[in-house]
């Protein structure tokens, strides 16, 4: 079932590939080389093993030998062309065997239960313990020196790499909800594997294939160079070996096969990299076309006053086509000392962008096109990273949405807090430790000593948020910016965290800018509210005013969407008559 859209998707991958010079050059080189190999019988009248004693070490062009003859009097050009075919066949056999075994067992091992995976794991680990090249040499009596049989064995030796790749991808995708949904839809496992799992595996496997082909060719040549296997098979390895013994007399004999082998393997690796960029890299990163220098702070004092004043702030992001798209367009708001301002809006309204701008942590590609952000009268936009760091450490603090992902899992909670405290105010380790313990006790952690020594995964989400709040208020900031600080928490924990924020604000006379989408949280803790929509503030007012008499229609829509006591469902379950419809299927 292909649809026009699936086609455009595929075409766009192809277009990305054709736009990448690395892909175009390496793919064309490979295509030309393969073509030369296929046309070998036409391009040369000499066989690969056809020796002419008169042409021993013949110069280029002699006896109709385009690149001369080797030490046995064979046509170097013809041998090069026929060696290409050997390499191509080696690559095809090695990769197809590795892919067939690796993908099949990777899908099975990843998708089905632990027991099947255990067996697959054990078998492939065993294969990996074999020393590859040595085994191929030892097996020569079995393969009878035939390079094709050798490549079959090598394919098996390569398969664990593919198996592991596929297995990991499948394990990742197996827990995706859409695979669960497919199972609930009654799809047989075979179909789920083909439709939902294989599509995810495809990209990385294509990339790995390019590298597998490269290593198959390299191993085949390596064995031939060592003289293992039949010496009647034309091969770059055998040619390099011949040229090597003749290096001082005819160095060119060594050069040609090395060059050909080098170009082939390099092209495969480069093509693999280009494929990776096209399949996994996603869209090309937008170019950073505007820098901070285009930003001009307004000469006049802003129209708003307060501890934090944001005046006509606009933030834009470059699109892939190179234009700027505004996500925040002219936001004006202010927070007074000791006040809590709720910044409310739906996803994409620009509320988090506004908060990040005040913190000075917008992503590198973001562009502040106009406006001003002042803290206590000082302009923050245009400050250097170093100056900003000083402001962030002491005057502005931040509490994030996801407490867990904002703690370093490899350090203890205490170590992280001590580091932060000492960065803001220089003090001895012991002093910092005492200060952190006092802070942990202050934010309501029952056993500060134990939490101090704990790693983040040993504490709950609510405790982690308390820890981050402790770190945020350590330097008694003027302003605390909290971005959805309770969204990831349970309601009972949320209530405790809001209580804590309320107490700390009173105690430290700290201003709080609270970004949230939850009107319950707003009603609980905010003095004033600014409602954002599509990058602008549509309404600002005190919390009481806003809930009682919303002025802007959008605010009214938002307030009407709130599910509260009045929205209790009262209609009884549908009558059997209404339920009849299900019988009609």
């Amino acid at each position, binding site marked *: *079932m292909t*649809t*026009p*859209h*699936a086609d455009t*998707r595929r075409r766009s991958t192809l277009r990305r590939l054709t736009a990448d010079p690395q892909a175009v050059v390496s793919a064309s080189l490979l295509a030309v080389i393969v073509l030369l190999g296929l046309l070998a019988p036409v391009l040369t009248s000499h066989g690969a093993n056809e020796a002419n004693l008169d042409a021993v070490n013949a110069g280029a062009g002699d006896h109709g030998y385009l690149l001369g003859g080797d030490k046995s009097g064979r046509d170097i050009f013809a041998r090069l062309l026929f060696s290409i075919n050997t390499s191509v066949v080696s690559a095809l056999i090695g990769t197809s065997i590795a892919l067939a075994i690796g993908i099949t067992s990777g899908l099975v091992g990843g998708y089905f239960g632990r027991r099947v995976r255990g067996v697959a794991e054990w078998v492939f680990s065993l294969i990996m313990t074999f020393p590859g090249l040595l085994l191929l040499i030892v097996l020569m009596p079995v393969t009878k020196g035939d390079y094709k049989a050798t490549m079959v064995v090598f394919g098996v030796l390569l398969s664990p790499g593919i198996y592991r790749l596929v297995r990991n991808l499948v394990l990742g995708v197996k827990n*995706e*909800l*859409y695979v*669960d*949904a*497919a199972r*609930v*839809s*009654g*799809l*047989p*496992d075979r*179909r789920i594997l083909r*439709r939902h799992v294989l*599509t995810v595996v495809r990209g990385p496997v294509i990339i790995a294939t390019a590298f597998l082909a490269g290593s198959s060719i390299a191993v085949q040549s390596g064995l031939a160079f060592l003289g293992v296997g039949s010496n009647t098979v034309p091969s770059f390895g055998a040619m390099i070996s011949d040229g090597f013994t003749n290096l001082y007399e005819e160095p060119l004999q060594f050069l040609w096969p090395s060059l050909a082998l080098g170009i082939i393997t390099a092209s495969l690796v480069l093509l693999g990299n280009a494929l990776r960029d096209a399949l996994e890299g996603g869209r090309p990163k937008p170019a950073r076309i505007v820098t901070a220098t285009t930003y001009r702070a307004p000469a006049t004092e802003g129209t708003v006053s307060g501890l934090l004043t944001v005046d006509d702030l606009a933030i834009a992001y470059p699109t892939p086509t190179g234009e700027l798209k505004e996500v925040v367009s002219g936001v004006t708001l202010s927070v007074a000392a000791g006040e809590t301002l709720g910044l409310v809006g*739906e*996803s994409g309204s620009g509320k988090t962008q506004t908060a990040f701008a005040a913190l000075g942590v917008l992503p590198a590609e973001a562009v502040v096109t106009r406006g001003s952000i002042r803290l206590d009268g000082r302009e923050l936009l245009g400050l250097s990273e170093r100056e900003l760091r000083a402001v962030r450490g002491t005057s502005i603090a931040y509490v994030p949405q996801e407490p867990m992902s904002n703690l370093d899992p490899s350090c203890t909670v205490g170590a992280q807090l001590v580091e932060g405290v000492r960065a803001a105010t220089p003090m001895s380790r012991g002093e910092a430790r005492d200060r952190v313990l006092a802070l942990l006790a202050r934010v309501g952690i029952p056993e500060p000593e134990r939490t101090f020594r704990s790693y983040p995964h040993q504490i709950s*989400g609510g405790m982690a948020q308390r820890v981050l709040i402790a770190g945020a208020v350590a330097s008694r900031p003027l302003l605390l910016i909290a971005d959805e600080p309770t969204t990831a928490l*349970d*309601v*009972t924990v*949320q*209530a405790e965290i*809001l*209580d804590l924020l309320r107490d700390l604000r009173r105690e430290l006379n700290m201003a709080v800018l609270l970004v949230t*989408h*939850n*009107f319950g*949280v*707003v*009603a*609980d803790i905010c003095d004033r509210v600014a409602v954002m929509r599509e990058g602008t503030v549509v309404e600002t007012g005190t*919390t009481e005013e806003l*809930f009682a008499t919303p002025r802007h229609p959008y605010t009214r*829509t*938002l307030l*009407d*969407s*709130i*599910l*509260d*006591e009045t*929205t*209790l*469902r009262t*209609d*009884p*379950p*549908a009558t*059997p008559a209404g*339920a009849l*419809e*299900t019988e009609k*299927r």
Partner: protein
Amino acid sequence: MTTLLEVSDLRVTYPGRGFRARSHEVLHGVSLTVGQSETLGVVGESGSGKTTIGRAVLGLVAPSGGTVRFQGNDITRAGRAERRALARDIQVVFQDPYSSLNPALTIGDILGEPLIVQGSGTSEARRRVAELLDQVGLPKDASQRLPREFSGGQRQRVAIARALAPAPRLIVCDEPVSALDLTTQARVLDLLVDIQRRTGVAYLFISHDLAVIRHVSHRVSVIHRGDIVETGTAGQVTTAPEHPYTQRLLLAAPVADPAEQRRRREARQRL
């Protein structure tokens, strides 16, 4: 009202990680029923085991004890073939509309696939897909597009359409609106209620949000650390709960009214 789903004394144990690690029981004997065309809300906090109930009903986790009966048949340990047959009757809407739709398939393929597997012809499936899109309020041309072209709310509509495809009797809704914006949330809930009125499908509706539960449920069960602590009508459980945990839960949820919220906060702090 006839009982559609009956879960009794359900226990689920997750194996511990690592060698000889102790296993961990997340449901300690949960019992509940869902009647025909009824919504049973299951409310609980993270880690309470509420999602596991849904997954056990769907056959995505194997219970270690107890039974799950659907229309009188024991489906606790239904085999693959039996599960595939059950797919006609029991469906699911997951929480995250971003990861519950395969990004590589068009909406038409996502909705049509289960129909074709269940034995519909291609043209019949296409007709049904159009019907489903209409039912959830999406434009007809949606079937040609990929999930990434839709907003969160629209994607959740697609997920609902997929659940409705085989005209099931029961849909397990696992936090279907908690990833959505406020305005979208209300619209999706209204859609779910509306569909129930029209088709008579029953919902096992799982959520952490009492306000959402209250909006869609006829009856509500409260789950706390793997045990159901209270079950009753939506009005009773969500306005005058008996169990102290439910009372705490109710008082902790902030209401969008500054004066009322202040009163609640004080009540909670006294508790």
